[in-house]
Each structure stands twice: as structure tokens, then as C-alpha cells.
């Protein structure tokens, strides 16, 4: 095959774990891809491509505890499916209008905000932005690792995270205004 997948599955242990993931999650991944793509062939391509990305980043994935793997895998297949959808439709990536570009707030900004306020503000963000924040700050992936995991450019990841932080700050401020 010229698409030399050539993943970093370097041991039998990796191979077994990868196969286990494949058998466990492939139906769920397919269903999710199909929900976005509404086409069987494209959905299978999305699942396959997602597994190629998983194989390429297997060292990182191995370090994630099993119960926490599902969101990670969902994010990958969702983003791959969206990329295919956009490619098929020649549609630009969903672009949030941020007028008068703001400097994103430092992450420490959120340290003094209580859980309920944070959760309700985070829930107002479109899912792709929550996913970007989750991968960066919960899974602690670098922008390069996120880029490799979900198949978009490093610059695209940076922009997405910056936008997410700006939008979250706005949501928190608006929530705060409402409470006053």
C-alpha cells in the first residue's frame, strides 16, 4: 500500500491494545461518523483515518487511562469526519466571528472562578472549541500533538484554542453581568 500507515505500533503489546481499541470502539466511531457524513463509504474512511491517527499517536494514547479514552477517541473521529465533510462540500471550517481580535486570557484567569459558573460558561461554547480546550488543558497535549491527533494544522489548533479562551472569557463576563 502506498499509504504506508507505518504507525508506531512497535510491540505485540501495542498491537494487541490497538486491536482491542479497534474492536471496542469501531461501531461507535462508525455511528458517529455516519451521523456527520450520512454516507457509509465516507464514514468507513473516517473511522479508518481516525485509527491511522490513533496509531500514529499511540504512545500518547497508551498513557490515557481506559475510562478516559472514549472522549479522546470521539474527538478524533468527530474531527476527521468534519474534515471529510468540509472537504466534500468545499466548505470552510466553521468560523466564529471574533470582531476586533482580542488577546486570549491566560489560563490562570479561570483559577478563581467556581465550578458551576465555569461549567455553564463552557457549555455555551461550540463543541469543537470545548474539544480543543479539553485536549490542551485536561489531556495536556501540546498544539503539535493535538494537530496530529485531529488532523488539522498546528496554526489551526492555536487559533482554535485562542478563540475558545476568548469566547469562554466573554461567556463568563456575560454570565457575571446577568448575575449582577
Amino acid at each position, binding site marked *: 500500500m*502506498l499509504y504506508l500507515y507505518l504507525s508506531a505500533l512497535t510491540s505485540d503489546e501495542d498491537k494487541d491494545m490497538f486491536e482491542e481499541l479497534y474492536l471496542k470502539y469501531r461501531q461507535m466511531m462508525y455511528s458517529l461518523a455516519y451521523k456527520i457524513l450520512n454516507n457509509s463509504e465516507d464514514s468507513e474512511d473516517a473511522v479508518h483515518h481516525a485509527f491511522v491517527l490513533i496509531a500514529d499517536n499511540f504512545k500518547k494514547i497508551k498513557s490515557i487511562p481506559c475510562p478516559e479514552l472514549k472522549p479522546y477517541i470521539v474527538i478524533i473521529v468527530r474531527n476527521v469526519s468534519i474534515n*471529510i465533510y468540509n472537504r466534500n462540500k468545499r466548505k470552510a471550517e466553521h468560523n466564529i466571528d471574533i470582531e476586533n481580535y482580542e488577546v486570549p486570557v491566560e489560563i490562570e484567569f479561570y483559577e478563581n472562578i467556581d465550578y458551576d459558573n465555569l461549567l455553564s460558561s463552557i457549555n455555551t461554547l461550540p463543541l469543537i472549541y470545548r474539544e480543543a*480546550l479539553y485536549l490542551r488543558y485536561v489531556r495536556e497535549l501540546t498544539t503539535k500533538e493535538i494537530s496530529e491527533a485531529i488532523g488539522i494544522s498546528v496554526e489551526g489548533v492555536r487559533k482554535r484554542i485562542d478563540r475558545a479562551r476568548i469566547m469562554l472569557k466573554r461567556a463568563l463576563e456575560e454570565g457575571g453581568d446577568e448575575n449582577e
Partner: protein
Amino acid sequence: MNDNFKKALTDSINAEFNDLIPETDSHTFSPRFEKKMKKLINQRKKPYYKLINTFGKRVACITLTIIVASSITVMSSEALRTRFKGFFIQIENTHSTIKSDDKANCPDTIEEIYEITYDLSDFTVEFEDYDEYDRHTTYKKGNIIISFYQHSKPSYDVDYNTEDAEIQEIEINEIKGLYFLDNKNYDHLIWDNGDYIFNVNSNIGKDELIKIAESVQKIESEQ
């Protein structure tokens, strides 16, 4: 990092995904998918270069000179699809999917083995992957890499990196085939001998690669 922030993000994501994931597990995956996954699972070698993960980042500059001259039919604005010299080719931005367009009177699986007979004694076999549908051997000497593939025609469905490539017609032992130089400076030759599809690709240089391709011969019958 603030624990509230992490917890709120995690809870938000999990709640969303619980609603998002459909409760279905009845899809029967296609043989094409199963085959690709089997290869992926069994693949444990490091890449020579990575050809995947390049979705739509750049507009490909693909000039199919020969094919265009043969008056192609553009069936979609998204992809060029055409037939050429026994091949069905679908050209995307970053790659082309090539299939056999002539699957009559050929074996469904690999029944006869073909190998390169050109002297590669100073190369080492870096990678081998054989199954009933495809055979793949990669040879290496220093930074020179030669990959040889024999595909059964009915299952031949391969994505090639043709980003910035120009696909041309070429003859291998008087059989017309396809040639292109990819954007990693690997030359590719693809031809159909009537029974099987062959592909050799390498950074050894085009002239040398043609000699290697012309040396491909039937070796033995598989029992």
C-alpha cells in the same frame, strides 16, 4: 492547572458525548475497510515518510497530461474521475485513488508470485507483508528505498500521494502503465500485466527504477 477548570471541561465534554453517540452497533463493515484495518493492525514498521494526514491542506497541482489529452470526463467538481490504460483513477487534492478498470479473466487472489529479478543483493529486505490479495516488499540500502507491490486486480484500490504530481504514460516491457514523481521525490511506476497490478516506487532514480520494473518476473506458484 485549576482543578475546577479541568473538571468543568471534562464534565461538559462527557455530557455532550453521552447525547452525541448514537446507540447502534449493527453496521457490517465492507471487505475494503476490513482489509485496510487488517493491514493497519498488522503494520508495525516505522514510516519512511508519512503520506497520510494531509487532508485538503494545499491545492494539488495535478496535470494529467496524457489523460487530459485523451479527453477525460470530469464527473465532479470535487474530484477528477477517469479511465486510463486499464485503470480507474480518481484524483483528489492530495492523493489519487487508483483501481483496476479491467477485472475480467484475472485471478481473484495472488495465485502466482512475481518478484524483482534485478540484482538487489546489496540491499536488505526492510519490510515484507504478504496476504492473499497483495504482496509488498521493501528493500533498503543506505537512504535508497525500493518498494515493490503485487496486487490482485479485483481488490486493487490504492491511494497514492499525487499532491503536486504529474501522472504520465510509460511503457514497461511494452505494457503501458502510469508514471509519476511524488512530492517526496519518489518515482512511481504502476502497470497491469493482465493478471495482476504491479507498483514499484523508489528514490533510486527513474531510469534505474524502470530497469527494476522490467526485471519483474513470475517466480513460483503458490500452493
